[in-house]
């Protein structure tokens, strides 16, 4: 048991180190790998992997994004400012290129700024459809993915065969399966540790991540749940600064589910992996089926109702919106979803996170919210 505990600690610490920012030591850690950066869960990781690269998700770093100021106004989200800052500082010089899928207005501009300021770097854009309900979105998306596949093939000087795409699909599905299992066992981890594992899955080569994650899941079965306090669901865009989670852990509450870009939206839905047919079709269908980001439009996804279901399934006491300041799609979504939650009588709290969160204030607000939930419980 003791041995297991120690091994679990060491697995966790491997994950935590893997996700640490800045990424400067990435190449030393994975010397035989070439990293291809990306910024959002709509980036076709499988295609990147099949081309021989390791997809690496860029995230908000701890440093103040001062160098981005000459390019992006103050009303830009912290994520976009921070990754540009990291690149201008030279922290991302080891990347072979950068992939920009299309989601929000800010990311769209950032792709062009990148091309302008790093003219020698490979920058590819994949303009995924926004109108997910249109029957014509599927053929469009497939052509767009094919185009992306061709441009990567050109970069690496060899075609990307169906077979290698199928094996990448299986590899990535495995990661998603593991993360979904972990998602159901998260009560056994602190909130911070759970999200550190998800972060690691977006940074480490999946071949290395998967076996470690499987091991971790096995150990977890025997652990006692970590928290007794109120059970929370989180909703929002990326959550790169884990300070909020530290506070939640510290206050004895638990995160039992989420609708986050750096959480369940990353591993929602598997692609078909039968190995016959067209792998591009399999990828396209996964994108159309997965729970969309609010920057996409689908009348079939009613986030409010989805969240109510999740809250019920996981027996949550309340919901916390962890929004990024200046993130338009999620700010709108908040106002839309709020109505549904209010009507259903679900308590919720809005936290608008800036680059350097005001820890004291966050703590006070969370404390008050949790107290209220505690009272409701008894």
């Amino acid at each position: 048991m003791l041995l297991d505990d120690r091994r679990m600690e060491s697995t966790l610490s491997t994950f935590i180190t893997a996700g640490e920012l800045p990424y400067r030591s990435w190449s030393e850690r994975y010397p035989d790998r070439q990293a291809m950066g990306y910024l959002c869960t709509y980036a076709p990781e499988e295609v990147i992997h099949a081309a021989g690269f390791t997809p690496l998700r860029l995230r908000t770093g701890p440093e103040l994004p001062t160098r981005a100021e000459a390019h992006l106004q103050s009303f830009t989200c912290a994520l976009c400012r921070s990754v540009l800052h990291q690149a201008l500082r030279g922290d991302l010089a080891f990347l072979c290129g950068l992939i920009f899928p299309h989601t929000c207005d800010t990311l769209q501009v950032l792709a062009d700024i990148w091309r302008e300021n790093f003219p020698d770097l490979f920058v590819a854009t994949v303009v995924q459809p926004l109108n997910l309900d249109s029957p014509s979105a599927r053929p469009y998306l497939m052509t767009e993915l094919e185009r992306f596949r061709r441009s990567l093939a050109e970069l690496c000087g060899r075609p990307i065969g169906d077979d290698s795409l199928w094996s990448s699909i299986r590899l990535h599905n495995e990661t998603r399966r593991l993360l979904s299992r972990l998602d159901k066992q998260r009560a056994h981890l602190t909130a911070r540790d759970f999200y550190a594992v998800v972060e690691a899955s977006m940074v480490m080569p999946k071949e290395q991540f998967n076996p470690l994650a499987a091991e971790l899941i096995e150990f977890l079965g025997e652990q006692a749940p970590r928290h007794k306090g109120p059970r929370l669901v989180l909703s929002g865009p990326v959550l790169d600064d884990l300070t909020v989670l530290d506070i939640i852990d510290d206050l004895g509450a638990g995160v039992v589910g989420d609708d986050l870009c750096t959480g369940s939206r990353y591993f929602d839905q598997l692609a078909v992996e039968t190995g016959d047919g067209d792998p591009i079709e399999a990828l396209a269908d996964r994108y159309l089926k997965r729970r969309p980001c609010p920057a996409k439009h689908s009348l079939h996804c009613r986030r409010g109702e989805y969240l109510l279901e999740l809250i019920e399934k996981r027996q949550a006491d309340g919901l916390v919106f962890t929004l990024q300041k200046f993130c338009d799609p999620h700010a709108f979504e908040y106002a839309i979803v709020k109505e549904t939650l209010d009507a259903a009588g679900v308590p919720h709290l809005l936290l608008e996170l800036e680059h350097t969160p005001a820890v004291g204030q966050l703590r006070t607000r969370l404390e008050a919210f949790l107290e209220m939930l505690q009272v409701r419980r008894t």
Partner: protein
Amino acid sequence: MVRKYKKLATAKDLNRLMTRYYAKSKLVGKFRPVAWVTSGAPVEILTAMGIASAYPENYGALCGARRVATVLCQEAEGHGYSQDLCSYARCHIGSVLGKADIPLGGLPRPDLLVACNNICSTAVKWYEALAQHYKVPLFVLDTPFMHHAELEAHTVQYVAAQLEELIAWLQKHTGRKLVQKKFLEALTLSRQAVQLWREIRELCQAKPSPLNAPDLFINMAPIVVLRGTKEAVTFYRKLKAEVEERVAQGVGAVPEERYRLLWDNIAIWPRLFRLFAYFVDLGGCFVVDTYTNAWSVDLDVSEPIEGLARTYTAVCINQSLQMRAETMVDLVRRFDVDGIVFHSNRSCKPYSLGQYDIRRMVDERTGVPGLVIEADMCDTRAYAEGPIKTRIQAFMETLAGWPPGEAAAQKL
């Protein structure tokens, strides 16, 4: 209102036209279905089907110009809409949700909503919120962003297919059919208006320029809300005749045009005249702008659906920074521009983010300097009069070369 330049005689016509438009729109719902549409939606289809269009963005601009936008924005903020969101969206949503007295009593209630993301993705979220509020059907037309100059076949196909879906959807919800003859008529009228608008703008290459930016901003209303109608064509014909007359007589929009300027981004509506009057005092005339330029792209009517798909996808703000910089370089050269003023508009991220890089690109290729001023198109809380004035003053001094007046004198 300070108005330090010549008023157009057609201002009366514009007034009459817009008053009639808004008066009519009060009643129109009784006779025809009403659709709320974004400024870049393919209204030619709706017009041809006899569906009336109302424009929440235009309403936002109107609230801004009447200086009631901020209060309405606060109303929306009270309902959970962040202060960092587009102020057209906020003030319009505020006008919908609030109980306050609102300009024109608001827009006629919508039966349908049509949003196109060729201006931004924000508009789509805004319309999703409206759809939830009014419980009416929403159609989203997705025009994929152009990171590269060429418009690819699969993109055109995707947009064209959605246009067909839109037609079927409109028919399903209104019972009205798209008659080919009416469609072509609307397209032709739209094209004529756009062409006239383009010609009017081109006339501003004359020295002195017959129009200044406020003229362009005010006179663009019909091209947005009455595109595809006879009234728009008639109005622009008359306006063009007057502008031509000014050019022939050598009459300038401002009393003394010393610097020819280019304006980038949406107007600052609550300060429209005051801000531009300030430039006029310093001899600056905005001979061209990028915002009203967006409505001057020619429409291909030979293949109506595909032509619409191309035109509406390739609108300026749906194109990369690189292409936008190129457009500006072209404007600078053709209009002999001395300086550029970039309105860094907190409200409109797709239009404003990237302006610093565009400024550098255009400067490198033309040597024409640019000034970035931080403000907002409607929300007066984001407008700091003092600092803006100081920065404009300093910029105009650079244009002149110090001491002031010297370079100006050389130029004359």
